[in-house]
């Protein structure tokens, strides 16, 4: 046996008993790790009745799966140890009968567990369909490569609101989201409010949800949809009905006229360069619908569909070279004169 190079005494190989102790240690560690499941995009931190149901089902399924897993491992360990000790009974008709009974019981138990699971799933689905409350708020979410178009429905056409990548909803009121896609299949997923629901071209899907707590919940496309699928997220902001109404009224207003000469120059830059080929700013001549509506882009939390925070520096980088931030995005690079770019940033950031 050679001497260990650094002169450390090697720990003896852990025996079986110490492994059980390790497992006993790991269980509370796993629970500690679960405590890290709180967050803006965690299904274990539900903010609405649907997400609560889903979480309950997930925990139920997790507990049962864990119990089954531990039972299988224990049975395996028992068999291995028994074999090592060499006290297995000789083959006999009696032993075969016992074996048959055991297998039958285990099979029955498995079927029973699966049946309970099925019932739990049905119960969850039924409970999730009931949101109760008043007339739901209706909005249409259209998934594009790679951003979200949001349109709030209203019986009065001029009260319909188009925005992008940020959905505000009032707390306590059910929200009926109509899901559509013009290009490929996407999936609408706000883990703290509901499960996943696909957006399928040529087919209209719906998801009914309710937020019971104010907060900002992150959503994410959950169906691979091409190059920038990973950067196709959005925010849901749940706020009190009064706050929501104020936000809605502010968003309905057309863009404010540029207040100073810099912003006027920025507006001119927007209209005379390629920006106006794809984007719309209500209240100006720009009315193209190929990219997100920018009427109140200055009021949003993030840019590029939740990819970067909405600050002037990011905005400038995004306008000049979006392909570095989001390779493959359908926004082309734009070369502007420095003063033009500064004016454009001032103008867009001023669109509160």
């Amino acid at each position, binding site marked *: 046996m050679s001497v260990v190079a650094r002169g450390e005494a090697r720990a003896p190989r852990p025996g079986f008993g110490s492994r059980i102790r390790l497992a006993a240690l790991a269980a509370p560690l796993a629970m500690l790790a679960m405590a890290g499941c709180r967050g803006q995009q965690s299904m274990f931190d539900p903010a609405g009745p649907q997400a609560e149901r889903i979480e309950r089902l997930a925990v139920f399924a997790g507990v049962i799966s864990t119990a089954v897993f531990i039972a299988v491992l224990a049975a395996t360990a028992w068999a291995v140890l028994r074999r090592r000790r060499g006290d297995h009974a000789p083959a006999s008709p009696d032993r075969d009968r016992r074996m048959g009974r055991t297998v039958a019981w285990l099979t029955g138990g498995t079927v029973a567990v699966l049946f309970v699971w099925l019932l739990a799933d049905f119960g969850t689905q039924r409970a999730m369909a009931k949101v109760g409350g008043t007339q739901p708020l209706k909005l249409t979410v259209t998934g594009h490569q790679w951003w979200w178009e949001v349109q709030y429905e209203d019986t009065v056409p001029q009260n319909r609101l188009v925005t992008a990548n940020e959905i505000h909803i009032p707390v306590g009121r059910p929200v009926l989201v109509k899901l559509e896609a013009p290009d490929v299949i996407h999936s609408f997923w706000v883990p703290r409010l509901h499960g996943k629901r696909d957006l399928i071209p040529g087919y209209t899907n719906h998801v009914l949800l309710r937020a019971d707590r104010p907060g900002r919940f992150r959503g994410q496309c959950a169906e691979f949809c091409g190059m920038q699928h990973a950067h196709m997220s959005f925010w849901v902001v749940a706020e009190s009905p009064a706050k929501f109404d104020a936000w809605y009224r502010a968003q309905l207003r057309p863009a404010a006229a540029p207040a100073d000469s810099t912003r006027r120059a920025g507006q001119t830059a927007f209209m*005379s*360069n*390629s920006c*106006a*080929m*794809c984007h719309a700013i209500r209240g100006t001549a720009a009315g*193209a619908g*190929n990219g997100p509506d920018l009427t109140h882009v200055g009021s949003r939390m993030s840019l590029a569909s939740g990819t970067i925070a909405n600050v002037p520096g990011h905005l400038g980088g995004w306008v*000049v070279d979006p*392909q*570095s931030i989001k*390779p*493959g995005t*359908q926004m*082309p*690079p*734009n*070369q*502007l*004169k420095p003063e033009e770019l500064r004016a454009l940033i001032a103008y867009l950031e001023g669109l509160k």
Partner: protein
Amino acid sequence: MSATPTALALACAALLAAGCKREDREFKTFPPSATPGSLVQDVSLVPGPRSPALVAHSPYEGNAYAVSEGKRLFGWYNCSGCHSHGGGGMGPPLMDDQWIYGSEPENIFETISEGRPNGMPAFGSRLGNDEIWKLVEYVRSLSALGVRQDVRNGRSDEMQGKQPETDVDPTKHPVQSQSPVKLDKP
């Protein structure tokens, strides 16, 4: 396992891997000219000389992705408003073999970028060079001009009075225009 099947499998894998490099997608693209006016030059109304300022040739020759992107941009920028879906309307058709200002990629680039008399607007200040090159590839694919079968778009969602783009036989003459465009003598 003997050596022969292993060698055979390796050879097959190498052959398959060669197919992985069908085409490259370039995301660091040319920014559009910072001074849109710099490209404009007086060209006679025949296929004009090439602008020295331009890239000498299309960067997207034979690039299927560029053709499909060109198709998307064709819809986005409302080219159909005048050219219909290649069949022509207020503007000349794009899927026949009549090319008033030349059919070379550079000619089409200049047509889109600088506009042409009688109605073609200049998009040079509104689109990046890169987008224009993609449009060029798509426009050329409409009349099967030097665009390989496997590069052309496979389907169209619009109703159209023509064969699917993949059925156009590049060896034969493209669809003849029903009404050749008469050029007014300047």
